[in-house]
């Protein structure tokens, strides 16, 4: 049996606060536990959507899976391999869409930006960029400077960067944030297309309806703990979310 695409076990993350007073006796570091014992597994082709209040640890979780930050405790396996021991192998399997527009070079064109990151993936940009640009309908825009793009084009370019190396796992942090309703709907269709291609999706969002559309599995992050939820047919997702966040309920597992 194939290993899960992503398997997270007993994952905790503590952010210590750098404080020079700690050097003196009697002063202890005051940090934050962002994640506490998170567990989940995603089979290949599965889609998990995580919602949760601001500061609940959603972004921390996906940055840990993407190997951008390191865990305090616990393990993350990508296709059965521990990311701590084989981060480069994990990065080859993962595509991360940070939705940080500043993480591109504004003076370079979209094509030049993609070419830079393609080369860092050991890819030939001439071969790697066109298929991705076609899927994302980016071809007409690629030769303009990045700073001239609208938010929608920038977001598509961000996704293009994430899938340049054809990863089978895609991690996204609020992919439709700041997009107008039509652009957001188009993007959701695109992401559903990725699901149909068998890609494993791990998405963080604040939009509950979007979470229902994108996530075959839904989870709510509350104070660093992940609770899977299973809304029943016709159940009000807003209400279920609110109850899970505020009180916890029978649907939480």
């Amino acid at each position, binding site marked *: 049996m194939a290993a899960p695409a992503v398997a997270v076990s007993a994952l905790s993350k503590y952010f210590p606060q750098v404080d020079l007073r700690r050097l003196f006796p009697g002063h202890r570091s005051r940090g934050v536990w962002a994640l506490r014992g998170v567990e989940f597994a995603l089979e290949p082709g599965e889609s998990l959507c995580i919602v949760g209040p601001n500061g609940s640890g959603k972004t921390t979780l996906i940055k840990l899976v993407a190997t951008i930050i390191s865990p305090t405790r616990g393990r993350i396996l990508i296709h059965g391999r521990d990311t701590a021991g084989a981060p480069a192998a994990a990065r080859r399997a993962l595509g991360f869409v*940070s939705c940080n527009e500043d993480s591109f070079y504004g003076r370079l064109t979209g094509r030049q930006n993609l070419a830079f990151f393609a*080369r860092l993936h050991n890819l030939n940009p001439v071969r790697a960029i066109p298929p991705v640009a076609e899927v994302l309908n980016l071809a007409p825009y690629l030769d303009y400077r990045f700073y001239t793009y609208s938010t929608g084009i920038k977001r598509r370019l961000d996704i293009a960067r994430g899938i340049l190396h054809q990863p089978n796992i895609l991690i996204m942090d609020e992919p439709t944030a700041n997009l107008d309703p039509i652009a957001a709907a188009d993007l959701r269709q695109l992401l559903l297309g990725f699901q149909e291609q068998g890609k494993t999706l791990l998405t963080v969002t604040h939009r509950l309806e979007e979470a229902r559309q994108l996530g075959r599995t839904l989870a709510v992050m509350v104070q660093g703990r992940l609770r899977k939820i299973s809304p029943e047919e016709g159940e009000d997702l807003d209400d279920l979310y609110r109850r899970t966040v505020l009180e916890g309920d029978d649907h939480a597992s």
Partner: protein
Amino acid sequence: MLRKMAAFLIRDFQVEVSYPFAFVWQWGSILFNLTTFYFLGRLLAGAAAPYLGPYGGGYFPFVFVGLALAAFQDVGLSAVSQTISYGMYTGTLEAMLLTPTSISTIVFSSVLYQFFSALLTILVYVGFGAGFFGVALGQANLPAAAVLLLLALTAHLPLGILSASFILVFKRGDPFTVILGKLTILLAGVYFPLQVLPHWVQTISWLLPFTHALEGLRQAVLLGQGLRAVAPQIAILLGFTVLLLPLSLAAFAWAVRQAKRLGTLSQF
């Protein structure tokens, strides 16, 4: 590896030429700089002669070599930290680390363009110096000058990597680039021979790698001394490189681990 190095070279060149006026002006400013020192040299002609005898006697050729090497040293000291600061500030460092690219590849490849740019700067200095101001370079020993230039870079690069490590953890207040950079310009003999400094200050000067690089380069360029004559300078610069490079890379790897632990890789 080569593809990744090419990626950084191409990226930095594309960014550079996207600011065309600055790209052209950096060469024009060298001409203004040299002109200033040319006339300063004429003013000092007699007064400075006793100090400049060991370097051929003229102030302008003396300061000309100092200015050219200072541009080169700046690459070693500040290129890595500038790249890392920009990458942290914008999030591009995080994006690069999401690719299967090692930290050491990012560090070394980030200075490649500036290294070639500094080499070109030196050639421009040589061109302007010889073409406009009559600096005689026919006697220069090119192999010795090339070895000294390379070692000047490798001896300063670890200091730049240490500076970048500091920035990764503490974000601001980097002591390496600012203090060492200023100290080098003041004490290493860029603008005046070390002999004009108090004796105890000269002792500090000889602790700086730049002092040895500059002394060797002046011997090679102005007096035509070969590799054998500048062997002491080569040995000292090699010593700085061998001692500091592994240390700085270890410090950088530790700094990245700290930044990942603290979650501050993309904070500034």
